[in-house]
């Protein structure tokens, strides 16, 4: 039940090729200026609502780009934070961005300054609003918890990769009555966010959110390509289930779809079927 090489079932190579192609073609289309469609996910409405609530209250907004170092998820989290900052800049609501990594900190400073410029309120940008607290998990967590309680934040946004510290953030935000929106690809932490936050953006939705906001061709194209792959998976599952039901679970077509060593029986079956 495992693949040592692609030869174990060439279907693997075909499927990987198909996914790669659909991702690359869509990235190319997006780069050519084609407007690719990505649906507006409900999480975005939740973000906008939270922004609205915090501007009414006039208390600060906190943003946490996860615990990890600088990587794909941190970049995408900052894209979303830039969007939020642009929105709240119009109402001069104060914001705090708290990081646990020096590189993320440096990039975040730039991004937030950019956001205020783009909102045409560079005067509101306070370099001290982006802070590096600690790179130690629980030291960072207690720093964030302290700040949330002291400043009685109105909204708390958590996007990126999180570990066990997630529940400390969520619990503290809950105590001060902040609107909380979380978005993470760390599935083990999602239950804590769902139980304690007002809305949780889960898994792939997180990537879709930043693609939607940034309109970055590579992200958009990749998102659309991945969708094609998912649809092909789903149709293989439905089609395969029907074949399994009517023709048996070891029909050559069923074996082809994913079983190691499933290629040979399929080829034999196919040549027989064509020969006849």
């Amino acid at each position, binding site marked *: 039940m495992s693949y*040592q090489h692609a030869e174990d079932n060439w279907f693997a190579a075909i499927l990987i090729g198909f996914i790669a192609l659909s991702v690359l073609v869509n990235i190319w289309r997006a780069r050519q200026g084609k407007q690719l469609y990505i649906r507006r996910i409900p999480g975005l409405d939740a973000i906008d609502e939270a922004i609205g609530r915090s501007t009414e209250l006039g208390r600060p907004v906190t943003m946490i780009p996860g615990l990890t170092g600088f990587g*794909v998820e941190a970049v995408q989290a900052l894209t979303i934070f830039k969007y939020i900052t642009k929105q709240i800049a119009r109402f001069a609501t104060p914001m705090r961005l708290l990081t646990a990594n020096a590189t993320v900190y440096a990039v975040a400073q730039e991004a937030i300054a950019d956001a205020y410029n783009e909102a045409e309120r560079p005067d509101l940008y306070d370099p001290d609003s982006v802070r590096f607290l600690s790179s130690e998990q629980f030291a960072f967590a207690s720093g964030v918890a302290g700040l949330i309680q002291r400043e009685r934040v109105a909204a708390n946004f958590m996007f990126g990769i999180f570990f066990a510290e997630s529940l400390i953030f969520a619990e503290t935000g809950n105590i001060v009555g902040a609107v909380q929106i979380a978005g993470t690809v760390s599935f083990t932490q999602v239950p804590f966010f769902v*139980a304690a936050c007002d809305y949780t953006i889960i898994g792939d939705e997180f990537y879709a959110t930043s693609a939607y906001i940034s309109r970055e061709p590579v992200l958009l194209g990749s998102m659309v390509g991945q969708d094609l792959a998912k649809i092909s998976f789903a149709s293989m599952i439905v089609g395969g289930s029907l074949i399994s039901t009517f023709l048996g679970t070891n029909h050559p077509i069923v074996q082809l779809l994913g079983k190691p060593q499933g290629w040979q029986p399929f080829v034999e079956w196919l040549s027989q079927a064509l020969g006849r």
Partner: protein
Amino acid sequence: MLFDTTQLLVALLWIAGAFALAIALIPLLGTLPPRGRFALISVVTFIVGLFFAAEFFLPVGEDNKNILTDPFQKMQGSLQVITALSLGLGTYGLVRLHLRNTVQRRPQWGYSVVLLTAFIVMAFFSIWNTMAEKGLFGLKRTPLLENAFTLLFDYTLIQLDATMFSLIAFYIFSAAYRAFRIRSIEASILMFTAMLMMIGIVPLGKYFSDWMGLPTTLTDEMRTNPFMWENILYNLRLPQIADWILKTLNAPVQRAIEFGVGIGALAMAIRLWLSLERGIT
């Protein structure tokens, strides 16, 4: 003879040469324009990726190997060496930060001294221990090493580690009480499932079910006739419900998540391989 690095002298000469080459290349690399830099990084990324991809995709012979299967081990080992070097990088950053704290007498610099002392002592014994294990430079495991290592590792580091992990239990308990509220349909489904699991997977679940008088065994008759009253009651036992949730409701959810993550990871691998991902490099 020239390539026979099993001779100590030849090996050392080769290594010295490699270092000299690496250093000599630096000024040369420095002359590259930004476009050239990006191109160089992309090419290196692509070629290394191509090696591992080709090992998987190329057809194999009778022995289930292709031309790249044997060098694979050495390539992967080289990556491991680089990963190890990057660990040294993290350590360097940490030590640099706390040395600076200490030298500049920043607030709370005393703790930095604690950290550095612990670091140096532990690094000394840890490296000694590793070298003694391999018998490098004729180093041996002495009683001093054994005792110091036991104290520092078994009775200090391990204890701190285990305690740090166990702290989370307290946080979960407090969060469960103060933050887990029935605020939406979703949160309610999640918490109801969680509570059912918590009681269903421990022996108390069986105890309650027995106490309620639900059937304890599944007979063949119950299996073939699902609409039998006993069968329905049997399936209402807490352990059975918990197992059914895990296997029939949880497994497809996990699989859907797996497919999403897997396709996403593959797409990301392709983007990174071809240096399409923006904002990272």
